[in-house]
């Protein structure tokens, strides 16, 4: 028992940078997804036909392929082909980001089209331009409605991020595996890794739940009694 817990204590300093890397991957990917996802959703809903098709195709590809295939495709194919030699970490973050952008754009699109037509009509009737109406009336409501679905991307990304092990990103699982290779206590180390993932997952979800509560409108939207 004491040997086991000693293994845990000894491992933690080595695992810690892995935790930072994992969270880094997830947060960068979430950010890329957000920055790309909202404009993509707006174009999908309000854009011209050709632009809509570009977005649809993008979503179709990035939702259609397994993450590992995407990772290999970008790591061994697309980035080298473009002459871009960036670290495995950044390739992984970008690929996870591109992928979640596809999902996030669908979340935001759903939230935008769920806003009643009357909101646009009322905004236009006051003399707002279409883009003003979208910016000041449609989006603020749509983003709130999207929040529960959007925050769900966090646990998905966190658990998916361990695949980046395959291209040698020194994230949590990679570092755990390196320890196992040295001290041959797979059970202890992998339980420890699992526990850390659980903690990261649910503490993150707890924070997002607080954010959702913070932006709730009285008597409006989900989770409120009316």
């Amino acid at each position, binding site marked *: 028992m004491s040997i086991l817990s000693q293994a845990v204590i000894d491992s933690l300093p080595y695992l810690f940078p892995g935790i930072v890397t994992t969270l880094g991957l997830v947060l960068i990917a979430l950010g890329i997804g957000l920055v790309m996802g909202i404009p993509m959703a707006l174009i999908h809903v309000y854009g011209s036909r050709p632009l809509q098709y570009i977005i649809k195709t993008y979503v179709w590809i990035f939702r259609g392929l397994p993450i590992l295939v995407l990772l290999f495709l970008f790591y061994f194919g697309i980035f080298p082909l473009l002459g871009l030699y960036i670290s495995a970490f950044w390739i992984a973050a970008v690929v996870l980001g591109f992928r979640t952008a596809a999902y996030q754009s669908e979340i935001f699109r759903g939230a935008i089209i769920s806003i009643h037509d*009357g909101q646009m009509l009322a905004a236009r009737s006051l003399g707002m331009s279409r883009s*003003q109406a979208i910016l000041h009336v449609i989006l603020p*409501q749509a983003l709130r409605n999207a929040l529960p679905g959007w925050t769900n991307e966090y646990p998905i990304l966190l658990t998916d991020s361990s695949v980046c092990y395959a291209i040698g990103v020194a994230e949590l699982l990679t570092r755990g595996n390196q320890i196992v290779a040295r001290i041959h206590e797979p059970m202890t180390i992998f339980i420890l890794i699992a526990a850390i993932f659980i903690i990261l997952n649910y503490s993150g979800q707890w924070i997002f739940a607080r954010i959702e509560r913070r932006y709730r409108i009285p008597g*409006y939207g989900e989770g409120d009694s009316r």
Partner: protein
Amino acid sequence: MMTDEIILRVEDIHKRYGENEVLKGVSFDVQRGETKVFIGPSGTGKSTLLRCINQLTVPDSGYIWLNGEEVTHAGPRINQYRQKIGMVFQNFNLFDHLTALGNVEIALLRVKKMNRQEARKKALMELEQVGLSDKVNSYPAELSGGQAQRLSIARALAMDPEVILFDEPTSSLDPELTREVLEVMRRLARNGMTMLIVTHEMGFALSVANEILFMEHGLIVEKGPPSEIPTSQNFTRTRQFLGSFQD
């Protein structure tokens, strides 16, 4: 309060949705300070007509003139004309993410580009006009139907419109809430606001309107001052529509 000045001219408006011709050539003039009430069976194009006036629905042909300026084919200038043509909707269409104050302020800030202080002062004044001074910080979902509709009237009023279009403003309200909304509209009429109203509230229509326009199958079929309805030849079809109204 009515003057001879024609502020709005509606000229031969046509609108078709596929096979269904909703408006078949509607024309009328509106004088400043006048209240016109449109009545008639459902589905005869009354609401479509109102939406054609501020171009929320673009008519297939015909013209709208506001103070002698063409509103149809206005391009991006339509946003300026719409500021002068207020609209009140049947289901309020309040901005659910904003408080009562925010609902009235937003167009003042974003469209009229007023500064915060000015906008707030103006919005508070309009809210007082419709009796909502105690609901300034309430969200639409926290208001009764009557309060919500009065708020949407305040939102329209804040833009200082030349004319306000009311599209069945009380149709989703019970009689008690209807009364408080009609009270506000009655006061607007008295104060000389130019109003075009689509409604089924006949008592209100008869007491407030300068002119009643009866629409059927996409056309104005009968019109005249409400006092003529019980007797005049001009209102034979209207009397039939209103049924028991004569007695």
